[in-house]
């Protein structure tokens, strides 16, 4: 069941979203060659708690970190670990926070040192996909208008759109209805209404859209081992323009 949030609920989500955005800004400064992803996780958890929020991912369905840290061919749900970032890597950092029982969720992909032109292009187009999707998150549109906007832009550039993992509703729980696929024909699914809150998150691969899950049962990687990028925002449908809640 898709819920519409009250202004009070949206305010809690804005607060949680602000913390997510500030945490991303802190980690962006810390992402450097030689830094273990576990260190990024420690910094994030510390910062989130210091900001008066809770790290939403820690322990969620058994996930071990406060952030998902997915490097290179890792699509999503990478475990923070002792793995040190290397020059030319790209890292997707996904952060969730909770304030007063309400959640916000956002992801970015960052370059480490000098990255290839190919990788930069992938990151740029994936972020553009996110904003193409957000632009369709309007009262009166259908859910798959978001999905179709993402898919169309990614495939126009020759990239693969991950099918097996999707965006989602968000609010009083980190994952709510509806699922928000990044593919599909427009004009399908539920009609969007003011007050709905969605985590829109294109996961775009340089090659095939196919992925597999590693033996840790969490980390998803591209089947062809090529790079993947991931951008996400928590967005509220309004009577007017879509509102990004996961920003400062």
């Amino acid at each position: 069941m898709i819920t519409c949030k009250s202004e009070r609920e949206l305010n809690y989500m804005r607060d949680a979203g602000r913390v997510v955005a500030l945490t991303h800004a802190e980690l962006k400064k810390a992402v450097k060659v030689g830094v273990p992803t576990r260190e990024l996780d420690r910094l994030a958890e510390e910062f989130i708690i210091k900001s008066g929020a809770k790290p939403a991912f820690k322990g969620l369905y058994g996930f071990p970190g406060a952030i998902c840290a997915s490097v290179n061919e890792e699509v999503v749900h990478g475990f923070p670990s002792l793995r040190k970032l290397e020059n030319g890597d790209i890292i997707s950092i996904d952060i969730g926070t909770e304030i007063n029982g309400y959640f916000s969720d956002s992801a970015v992909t960052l370059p480490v040192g000098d990255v290839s032109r190919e990788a930069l292009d992938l990151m740029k187009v994936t972020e553009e996909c996110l904003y193409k999707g957000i632009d369709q998150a309007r009262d009166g549109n259908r859910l798959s208008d978001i999905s179709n906007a993402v898919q169309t832009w990614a495939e126009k550039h020759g990239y693969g759109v991950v099918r097996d993992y999707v965006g989602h509703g968000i609010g009083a729980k980190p994952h709510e209805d509806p699922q928000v696929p990044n593919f599909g024909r427009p004009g399908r699914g539920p009609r969007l209404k003011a007050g709905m809150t969605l985590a829109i998150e294109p996961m775009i691969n340089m090659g095939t859209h196919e992925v597999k899950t590693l033996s840790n049962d969490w980390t998803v990687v591209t089947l062809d081992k090529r790079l993947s990028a991931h951008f996400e925002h928590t967005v509220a449908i309004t009577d007017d323009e879509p509102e990004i809640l996961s920003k400062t």
Partner: protein
Amino acid sequence: MSGNAAQIGRLVCSMQGRDSGRYYLVVGSVNETRVMLADGEVRKVDNPKIKNVKHLKFYDMIAGEVFDKAINGKRITNVDVRKELKSLIEQI
């Protein structure tokens, strides 16, 4: 953190088991790895087949009406499933 995509209404084909080669729509999920499937004929909505996602081929097609009803808490009927399944299979 992204959600798993056992999207309600998604077209799948069984790749393993006695029903290998049979098409279904996803009508629910048991957990991260097992989904509920119906075709509206052999497997009705109120008696769905439960299969591991590893044994299914997922198509990039979603039955809009089934998805819509499930998300809005309305009852999915076998007629819905049959009608939409037929239309999606024709598009493969």
